[in-house]
């Protein structure tokens, strides 16, 4: 049904205004990064720098070990996601396909584990990692991030496997595969998009963490993650918002890229099973 013109104009205006207000903070981050620090102290503020200093990103990378931080974040995320994916692909498949005694309770526990406060878990983990001499090492946050990621990915993958007809692996088994072979040769290739989306979701969870990195890595400068590095910049350069903003953009970029490319999948995974 075609709406009347005034209504449509109102709709477009409403959408435009809403988007503008909600996305403005991100825009402002970009403007701040591209402005000369001295310009930022002028009032009224300018909403687009007359001479955007695109070189700020290269400059901040030279001044600060941003690349090292990004590398550490990536290492931690890749480690945590790999570990989590291996166990949760197997567990998700089992929960989806087998009636295992205690499987339902485990599913419920995993569901509850998603709700655990990090500030609770971080205390005993600190003690345990101290005894294992892992404090300051990236392994500490790889393991800690796995506690965040596994509950999500297991449940997401179970949901994804549920959508794949059982007849596929039954056909593969009749064709001569072992149950594990049917999973590896048929179910996993068919699930590739779901696996990718799930892994990326885990990546986002790990990349966004601050609490664990702050607790386990503060005294190991060489292993700082991007988020941790940014907060130390905020503490020390209380006035140089331009540099902090530039660094922040570099940190947010990978996640934004993942979001833009995989919006559909991420949103699907986020809301999977949300409606009855």
């Amino acid at each position, binding site marked *: 049904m075609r709406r009347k013109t005034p209504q449509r104009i109102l*709709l*477009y205006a409403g*959408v435009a205004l*809403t988007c503008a207000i*909600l*996305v403005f903070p*991100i825009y*402002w*981050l970009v403007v701040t990064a591209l402005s000369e620090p001295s310009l930022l*102290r002028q009032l*009224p*503020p300018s909403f687009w720098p007359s001479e955007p200093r695109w070189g700020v990103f290269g400059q901040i990378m030279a001044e600060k070990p941003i690349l090292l931080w990004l590398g550490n974040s990536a290492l931690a995320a890749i480690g945590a996601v790999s570990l989590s994916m*291996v*166990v*949760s692909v*197997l*567990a998700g498949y*089992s929960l989806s396909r*087998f*009636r*295992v005694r205690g*499987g339902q309770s*485990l599913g419920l*526990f995993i*569901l509850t*584990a*998603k*709700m*655990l*406060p*990090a*500030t*609770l878990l*971080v*205390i*005993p*983990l600190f*003690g*345990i990692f101290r005894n294992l001499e892992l404090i300051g090492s990236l392994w500490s946050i790889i393991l800690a991030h*796995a506690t965040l990621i*596994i509950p999500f990915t*297991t*449940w997401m993958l179970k949901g994804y496997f549920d959508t794949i007809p059982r007849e596929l692996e039954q056909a593969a088994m009749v064709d001569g595969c*072992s*149950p*594990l072979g049917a999973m590896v040769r048929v179910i996993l290739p068919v699930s590739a998009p779901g696996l990718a989306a799930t892994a990326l979701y885990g990546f986002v969870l790990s990349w966004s963490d*601050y*609490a664990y990195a702050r607790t386990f890595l503060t005294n190991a400068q060489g292993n700082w993650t991007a*988020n941790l590095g940014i907060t130390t910049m*905020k503490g020390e350069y209380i006035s140089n918002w331009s540099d*902090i903003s530039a660094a922040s953009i570099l*940190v*947010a970029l990978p996640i*934004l890229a993942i*979001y833009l490319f995989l919006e559909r999948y991420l*949103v699907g995974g986020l*809301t999977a*099973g*949300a*409606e009855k």
Partner: protein
Amino acid sequence: MPRSAFLDLARPSRRHWLGYLLLAPAVLLIALIIVYPLFVSVDLSFQNVNIARLDQPRRLFASEDFWNACWVTFKLVTIVSFFCFLLGLGTALLVNNRFKGQALARLLVALPWAIPEVIAVVIFAWLFDSSFGLMNWLFIKLGLVDQTINWFSSPDAAFAVVCTVMVWKGYPFVSIMMLAGLQSIPEDFYNAAKVDGARAWQRLIHITIPSLMPVIGVTLVLVMLWVFRDFSIIYVLTGGGPLKATQSLSIMTYEQAFGFFKMGYASAIGVITLIVCVIASRLMIARAPDNI
């Protein structure tokens, strides 16, 4: 290719073993990095070197700081959840209309979800900067205030900024969930209502909202739990200050543990947050068994 009969998991009588085998790594890892630590912290919370067991909880309940943190957490959860819903549901309804550029609008509306919390804090810390922040300039221009506010040294103002950041970071989740919910309402419901002569707002109240109720319920619990547990935003933005105005239970737990190294006392608070979380998630699961 003869397989050993006993280990042949393809045999019908052996196949269910595979179910256990596949779960084993997850169970082991979860036991090691989630269950065991949980036991340790419950144990810690009842432990103290010089004073008798069961003392931590008693000390906790007598502490003024604890009740302050409870009050702050409660205010935070209520206010942030309310505005997240207002904004999330509003944007979802708006973007759910059919118009050119809908895909782009959907993308933009949910964009803050993809910004790491620490970065969100950086953005808002600068927006609310006391000397050159955009917000101060804007508020003065609009005549709302006559001199710059020092946002992070006034308890009420700091609390408001924390709320703002959390709402901005949290509403996209509501929006995404509501959009998914809206899209699952059959078009026929609306057509039938239109045939019956229902106006737009009547359709909203009698079809949209009731159909969304299950999703709303689950989303509400998830958002409340997120606010309840969140650490990064408050910690990086205000550190719980000024004057503990933004010290939620999470922040207090962390401060006690890693600021004052009172692990037992901190664990006691942590265990209480855990109990609240478990009850809330159980409520949600009971309501919607096959949910997230």
